[in-house]
């Protein structure tokens, strides 16, 4: 089963990391990514630009384009993973591994219904 792991955290806190702090977190995550990739369980991974770069399209008639993210929340969607796991326990295990490398915030684990192939930009 494929799962999306949606990464939520306070953007102001993550954005406030120094380059060294950011690099340190990324290096720790790279170890976990490597392990998952080796097991063939790592799908697309994305780190999103800040929500200030976001635009929202309300699909009304006519459609409305709004600046900013869809929801104003205390913690923002900052990135996501697509991973392969046998069941929820397996997905949670992966999320916990990622969480140990990158503490703070929350992961939302969502089973994927339909998945079309990814492209490499």
């Amino acid at each position, binding site marked *: 089963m494929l799962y999306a792991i949606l990464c939520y955290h*306070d953007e*102001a*806190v993550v*954005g*406030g*990391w120094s380059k060294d*702090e950011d690099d340190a977190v990324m290096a720790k995550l790279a170890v976990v990514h490597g392990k998952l990739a080796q097991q063939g369980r790592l799908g697309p991974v994305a780190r999103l*630009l*800040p*929500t*200030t*770069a976001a*635009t929202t399209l309300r699909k009304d008639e006519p459609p409305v*384009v*709004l*600046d*900013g993210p869809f929801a*104003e929340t*205390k913690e923002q969607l900052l990135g996501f993973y697509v991973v392969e796991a046998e069941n929820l326990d397996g997905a949670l295990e992966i999320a916990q591994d990622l969480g140990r490398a990158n*503490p*703070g915030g929350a992961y939302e684990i969502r089973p994927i219904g339909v998945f079309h192939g990814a492209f490499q930009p």
Partner: protein
Amino acid sequence: MTDVAWIDAALTSARPQALGALLRYFRNLDTAEEAFQNACLRALKTWPQNGPPRDAAAWLIMVGRNVAIDDIRRGAKQQPLPDDDHAISDLDDAESELADRLDGSHYRDDILRLLFICCHPQLPATQQIALALRIVSGLTVKQIARAFLVSDAAMEQRITRAKSAVAKANVPFETPGAPERSERLAAVAAMLYLIFNEGYSASGESINLRAPLCEEAIRLGRLLLKLFPAEPEIMGLVALMLLQYARSAARFDANGALVLLDDQDRTLWNSKMIAEGLALIDKAMRHRRTGAYQIQAAIAALHARAAKPEDTDWAQIELLYGSLEILQPSPVITLNRSVAVSKVRGPEAALEMIAPLAAKLSNYFHFFGVQGAYLMQLDRNDEARESFNRAIALANTSAEADHIRMHLDRLMLESKPRAKVAIKAKNKAAGPK
């Protein structure tokens, strides 16, 4: 990250909102700062045990306010308590209610006001910047002094003076109307760009000391953009800062000498910052409400989009500088446009264009640097040397002077091989037939 590092990051990120609300409540900067400081001390004590609160800013506001009121009640301060109208509930479970209220419209104006009092028009630019870094960013006097290359005592004095000027300025605490809000926003944007430039114009050994100023300006810019997500000029400002700062690793060589855009190693540019800057300018343009920051960001975006210097769309850059000239007529902008003109129509046209600026820019380093470069391209080397010498005399930093000296050295080198070629040609002509 350790507990302390996490708490530190949370306190920094909550600071503008918490301090802004405390300022609205107490209407006195010193009281508000002290209240915030006390709240931070409590946070350092209790957060490691109890875990972080759901909303750090709301927690700090409530605790800061209660501690300050206790102090006033105990008579430690000869100061009247604010009216109950402004009071924030001090029930323990009030945090969520408070957070909801803060999520409303108030905190947006609180943060804007906090930034705005720092850029009071009576304050000179250097005081505005110092005050904003102290109050809004929470940098220590020592950190700010280091960035400005002055002693701690001098910086302390500068900030104290700025604070007393602000106290006398009587910035209104009522919710601002729409025209007033947009005026405040423009003043704050200008101040953020000042902070950014203070960091960006650094050279030599001060580069590392001043880089945090650029980062802080970007951080505050993003904060402003969060509060006012549909303001194209704020998008433009943040885009401009990101696109410029993205080049910082390539702007100086290992010896600290300035590297021109054309000569920079573009693989050193920060692609993530460029992506964010391009996304923001893209969003801003859709509003079709042009402004100086957007145009400058669009120019920076054209440079950022060019993988190689020769891919740069100079014709478009010239057009953009043309619009900027109409919006903000200034000889410096004309001078910048001339650089684009030199690329599109050649150095002769550019030289002609800057000739009328000579009187207005007779004390401007870049005028003579640019003039010298055009003359050099036209092989008018003696005149070029003269311009470069004047530029060196007007250089603001040693990196600027060194950069011009490099041009002079190049002129020397170029004149030598040519002389050799001429001699060789002569020898050839005079050689045996």
